């Protein structure tokens, strides 16, 4: 049963100021032996320095470079990205959705903040904001305009609300003028937001 009959939630027993609150909880849990501070450091290092949108950009650049990879990716992304070493927490089930001139894809989680961690890392603040969660499904074009993206009226928008454990990655369209670029150069054009669908890849300079 939901335990919300009690207005006095246990969290109110901790100090109200966020930094003191987290410190208090970490201290209690460490004293009890339930968390290892070195493990906390390792988790933070993982998501601050190692797992981020460069992983997704690698996948996108491969899809742009290799038609058979792209086909396999659109059919069974979970297996294909796992073979590249991109798997784990918040990426157990991955689906890649492809942008075309006729359709632009955009991802949100209106109920919380679901996001493909192994491919993009932890989400940016705006992705978790009330404004994005509330508005992306109802007025995606106005939200896109706030990111500087203007779609033609010939392009339909498909907004994916991540309500289950499936995580979505947008495969953006390959920019014009990139014919001679190798995979690393292509990956450098792929922004985080272009894989969420609130941005477009950069053009080659």
């Amino acid at each position: 049963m939901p335990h919300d009959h009690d207005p006095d939630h246990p969290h109110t027993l901790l100090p109200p100021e966020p930094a003191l609150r987290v410190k208090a909880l970490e201290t209690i849990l460490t004293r009890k032996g339930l968390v290892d501070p070195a493990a906390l450091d390792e988790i933070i290092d993982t998501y601050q320095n190692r797992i981020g949108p460069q992983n997704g950009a690698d996948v996108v650049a491969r899809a742009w470079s290799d038609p058979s990879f792209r086909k396999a990716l659109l059919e069974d992304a979970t297996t294909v990205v796992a073979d590249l070493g991109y798997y784990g927490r918040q990426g157990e089930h991955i689906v890649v959705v492809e942008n075309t001139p006729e359709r632009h894809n955009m991802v949100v989680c209106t109920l919380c903040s679901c996001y493909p961690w192994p491919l993009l890392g932890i989400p940016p603040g705006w992705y978790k904001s009330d404004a994005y969660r509330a508005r992306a499904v109802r007025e995606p074009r106005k939200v896109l305009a706030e990111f500087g993206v203007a779609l033609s009226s010939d392009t339909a928008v498909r907004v994916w609300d991540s309500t289950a454990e499936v995580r979505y990655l947008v495969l953006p369209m390959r920019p014009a003028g990139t014919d001679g670029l190798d995979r690393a150069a292509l990956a450098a054009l792929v922004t985080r937001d272009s894989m969420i669908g609130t941005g477009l890849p950069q053009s080659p300079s």
Partner: protein
Amino acid sequence: MTRVHDMGGRFGDGAVLPEPQGIPDMGPEWQARALAITLATGALGEWNIDISRHARERLSPKDYTRFTYYEKWVAALADLLVETGLLTRDDLQSGGDLAPEPLVERALRHPKVAEVLAKGAPADRVGGPTERFAVGQAVRTRRPAGNRLCPGGHTRLPTYASGARGTILRLHGTHVLPDSSAHRLGDAPEPLYAVAFPARQLWAFPEHPDDEVILDLWQSYLEPA
């Protein structure tokens, strides 16, 4: 029926504020610690993702609204730690005693972090009911959108999509039903579908006649249309 987290379609939240590309800045150190403590205690195995989501959703509307993102995580975690008996109210108030904690052996240690993060927790299951719907079939979502097993319980059918007519776009396989799992009633796996809804089914003033919203919905959320 609804809770404060169920905000899809809501008016009045203002502009979305883009941030620089790349790995996001985690902000003040306490936010990174909050993330890490939440993941580390999750690895103790005393709750699943649905239980932890529901703990955040059960924060009072006042707290949910005034708390920043990681403040929600920390508050919900403190509540869960007490509800599961890992900590007592006295521990939270007084800083905790050194009483032996039976789960110490399960604590996530530094050398195991990479392995645990890489393992994840797949939500697909073998078995469950057979698929009732086929790709291309018209369906309607149930209304009202509440949990049918537990009043006020967790569900993943957002209110904005309740009672709407859509089309089955793809089948994801059979997945754990959050409405059951969040309340320790078992996995109760069901076929999970991506369902496409025309924007005009959902909103009084859709932006474009061809726009759609896709939701991942469990079989029991749907009926033939």
